[in-house]
């Protein structure tokens, strides 16, 4: 990333927590925030991944703290926020990114447990992370960015991903509800909807009997038409940093699609 910042970064001295910061978009966001001077709480379930992100931020001259926690566990999230409060005394930014594709399967094949797991991992975690962070953020205001998806808002053709898409759609509604609710506390809440991004998320998708339900669609070659390839996590990280900065201080309650217009096709 060598792009000059198109705004005066205001993240120096600010504190942010990024969930799912061990890989992909979360890691890229954590590194970008660190680069712009924020102190970053790096949260993920996996201690090794957390440490790798923390190390990368530190090597670039930034300040980061490891937070090993499961975003479906209220107590672990509250403990993480308490740790940040103790170390840095404030919280200005929150990136609600942790999530997974989960099990893709026909709707009459998907089990209740699989459905619940996807909604817990993507949606209830969004509630719990926000719930845990907001008391500290109310001290001085701040900005929350929720990472949703083009799935559930603009793309519905991934048959079998009903649980995933539903969880992602609900994150958009959650964003708008809490954007209004938290406005009086000077906390902005926005939502980023990435399209295909070059991360490891698809490698972790569980697929069962999805071939039979997928409506056949053939895209012309080069269907990632703008870049010629999927987006990078760094590109999403730059958007997240902008939404956390004061340059976006009148932006709240909006979704931003970051997919090079692919979801329009």
């Amino acid at each position, binding site marked *: *990333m*060598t*792009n*000059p*910042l*198109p*705004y005066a*970064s205001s993240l*120096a001295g600010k504190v942010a927590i990024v969930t799912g910061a061990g890989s992909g978009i979360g890691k890229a966001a954590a590194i970008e925030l660190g*680069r*712009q*001077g924020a102190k970053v709480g790096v949260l993920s379930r996996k201690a090794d991944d957390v440490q790798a992100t923390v190390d990368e931020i530190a090597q*670039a*001259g*930034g300040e980061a703290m490891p937070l090993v926690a499961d975003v479906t566990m209220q107590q672990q999230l509250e403990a993480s926020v308490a740790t940040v409060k103790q170390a840095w005394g404030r919280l200005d930014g929150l990136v609600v990114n942790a999530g997974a594709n989960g099990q893709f399967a026909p709707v009459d094949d998907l089990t209740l447990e699989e459905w619940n797991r996807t909604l817990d991992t993507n949606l209830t975690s969004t509630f719990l992370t926000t719930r845990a962070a907001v008391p500290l953020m109310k001290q001085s205001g701040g900005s929350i960015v929720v990472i949703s998806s083009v799935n559930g808002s603009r793309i519905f053709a991934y048959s079998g991903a009903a649980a995933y898409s539903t969880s992602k759609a609900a994150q958009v509604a959650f964003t*708008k509800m809490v*954007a*209004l609710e938290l*406005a*009086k506390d*000077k906390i*902005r*809440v926005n939502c980023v909807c990435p399209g295909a991004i070059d991360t490891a998320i698809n490698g972790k998708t569980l697929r069962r009997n999805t071939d039979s339900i997928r409506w056949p669609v053939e895209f012309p070659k080069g269907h990632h*038409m*703008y*870049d010629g390839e999927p*987006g*990078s996590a760094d*590109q*999403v990280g*730059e*958007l997240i940093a*902008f939404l956390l900065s004061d*340059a*976006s*201080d*009148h*932006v*709240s*309650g*909006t*979704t*931003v*699609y*970051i*997919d*090079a*217009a692919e*979801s*329009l*096709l």
Partner: protein
Amino acid sequence: MSESTTVSRPPRAFEGKVALVTGAGSGIGKATALELARQGAKVAVLSKNPDRVRATVDAVEALGTEALPIVADVTSQADLEGAVAAIEQAWGKLDSVVINAGANGVWAPIDDITLDEWQWTIRTNLTSTFLTTRATVPLLKKNDKGAIVIVASVNGSRIFSNTGATAYSCSKAGQVAFMKMTALELAQFQIRVNAVCPGWIETNIEENTVHRNREGLRLPVEFPQGVHVLEGHPGSPDQVARVMAFLLSDAADHISGTEMWVDGAESLLVG
């Protein structure tokens, strides 16, 4: 990643870039022209009003960059094509287009507003968006990439309660659809197209609004604590301009086909 500190980025994102801003004589357009100039862009300053063009040009030049005054009517295809020719002659290229010119027009009951008034509003806001895009795309295509930002509104996308503003809201909704159509069409030319939807912003747009027979037209919803939920007051043109600059910059190079509401969440209350 070879950069090692937060301060190693080149300081100005629009160094060497050329931008056209329509409606640059006041409000959001002027603020955007100045924000881009502050970040190093050469700015073509387009407005119908020669005095306002001159004032913005002076302000751009005071920031140490170049400005090109263009007095033109955005409903005139010939004017816009002349403007693009002037930009090409002066600077040889075009990177960024801000489609901002527009007006509220006449706000009146649907059986009161005349066909001429309707057409004036659609032409001023929506057809001008088409014409500006049409005139600038050939020059944008000559670059390796380009970006367009259209200034739409919360009206027509999230707010439908300004009863009487039907023509205005339809023109603004049309701009959002136009943005998505052209984002897809122009992707193959590496031209990104996005829209901002501002809420209440402190500008003089109301000066030229004609309100006629709207008494009792709007359902009397009351907001005892006001509607400016985030900041307690309307937004500033500069706040919108900063979002415009982000969307036009290379930092947004994977963002195309999206609208962004810039309203401090007001439209989630008002609707």
